[in-house]
């Protein structure tokens, strides 16, 4: 019989493994595969740098993608016309402080800290912030129902843009 603490730890390890795999998929630009990690109604948000906790329906975000726009974003990124990412940048994600915040049925709320380095044209920009995930348990893995990348940067300076998947 496993204790509650052991169950909690096991869940966190599963979540960590999932996030680390996602980070690898993104770093290798396997974006079709990344899209498969989302539920049919999955969404992806990057709130503005001046209001970190906000609703995209009444606040201007940097990115607020429903599944349809996310599909298109991926398709575009894999094509030739995202000039800001062609040739592709190199990215590397350091993900730490992974915490399971809440579990309800098959839904798991997770937060994690990140530093995402984007390296291109001899420039190296570090994006610092926190992920908030709403995950759905599917068998022994998860699907992403909502993915929020909340930047701690006070402005996108000198970064200038979020042209890749944060």
């Amino acid at each position, binding site marked *: 019989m496993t204790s509650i603490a052991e169950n909690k730890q096991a869940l966190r390890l599963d979540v960590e493994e999932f996030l680390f795999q996602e980070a690898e998929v993104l770093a290798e630009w396997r974006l079709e595969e990344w899209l498969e990690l989302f539920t049919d109604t999955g969404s992806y948000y990057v709130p503005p740098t001046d209001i970190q906790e906000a609703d995209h329906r009444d606040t201007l975000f*940097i990115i607020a993608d429903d599944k349809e726009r996310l599909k*298109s974003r991926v398709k*575009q990124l894999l094509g030739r016309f995202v000039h800001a990412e062609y040739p592709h940048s190199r990215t590397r994600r350091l993900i730490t402080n992974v915490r399971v915040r809440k579990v309800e049925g098959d839904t798991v709320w997770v937060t994690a800290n990140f530093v995402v380095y984007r390296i291109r044209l001899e420039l190296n920009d570090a994006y610092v912030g926190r992920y908030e995930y709403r995950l759905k348990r599917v068998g022994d893995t998860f699907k992403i129902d909502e993915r929020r990348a909340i930047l701690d940067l006070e402005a996108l300076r000198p970064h200038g843009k979020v042209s890749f998947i944060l």
Partner: protein
Amino acid sequence: MLRNGHNGHGNGHGGHRELPQLVIDDEANGLFRVHRSAFTDPEILDLERERIFDRCWIYVGHASEVPKPGDFVTRRVAGRPVIFTHGHDHKLHVLLNACTHRGAIVCRERNGNTKGFQCYYHGWTFSPEGELRGIPGEDAYEGTAFDKHERRLPEPPRVESYRDFVFACFDPHVESLRDYLADAAQYIDYVADQTEAGMEIVAGQQEYSMRANYKLLVENSIDGYHARTTHQRYFEYIAERGELDLQAMAEMMKVKGGRGLGGGKSLGNGHAVIGGGATSPWGRPIARWVPAFGEERKALLAAKIEKLEKRFGKEKAHMMTQSSRNLHIFPNLIINDIMAITVRTFYPVAPDYIEINAWALAPKDERPEDRALRLDNFLTFLGPGGFATPDDVEALEACQRGFKTIKESPWSDISRGMKRTPPQGDDELQMRAFWRQWWRLMNSPERISVSALPAGVGA
């Protein structure tokens, strides 16, 4: 460039130093060239700060950002830290954000509502109108000429607003803002008149940057020529979503005889617009319906058009609802009324680096579901995570990197359509309007009214 000019090293501020020829405006041969040192030379930027940014009206903010007495936001205007406040005197103030005692930044918050500002260094306090209210140990000044009123937070010599757009000028002798705006005012009206309830800046600021010269962003913001190449992916996306009027699009994208958004127009004093009334291929939240907006909105938008036609007549209502335009207010304000409205301003930190702030502008009385649709439309194209802006950033940064070849390739060409009338949407007339004004101001060491400068002629 200046270093190689007639006077060797610059002779300091405002001298009668002659600039080398940076702009070639050859009407006879239809050639217009800009020397690339205008984008790279730090001495030219110093001169721009003095002759352009410190003598033109510079956008501060929108009245809706500080709706109540005591409301404030902090930002930089023409390089200076300022506090934009709504005073208890019911006036809007632009306070220079440096303590008159020893110079520390007085307000270090982004925004809020306050009874006053306290400089924490020695505890001096100022009202939202800028008056010096409190000095710890004030008795120490007894018997001196110290004057509390004189030690208030200074404001730029001139602060005026037009249709809730608030501007400041650091030159006391500048003409009125209304005169300065010249023919650009009516294009601000197209936006400001959308609803009787007034317009407001939506929460959420897009704060970003470019490793590029600010004039590249001016050019880019009113450039119809780059749309079909730089922004191809955006058009493919909205076509897939059924948000694109293919006939209007075909017309816009026609290489020969295409109207683009409509031809560019010089509006006086360096201001310019691109977008001459052609029906937009995309949906516009004000009242240009596309299937993706949903059947429910069709009747609502038709009613809105009718209302605007009653208020302003058919022609202006068409401009406001069906057509799009990019407006440049010299030297650093862009109001793009396209698939949403963005207000964008920027300032050069260095010849090859600018800070940009952009906002969404919307009718105050918009329904929440319409506001959500507007923001969705906005994000598709605009902003540092949209399907267009990042590629603009990339293009302008690529130009800046390319300028390293300046010695062998010193001139940029802005001649497109110089001998063509009427101008087409992908011509460069509107950029020439900017450069002509830039060149006139850069060559005017003595302060003269911007409107009094000899008018630019030519296409």
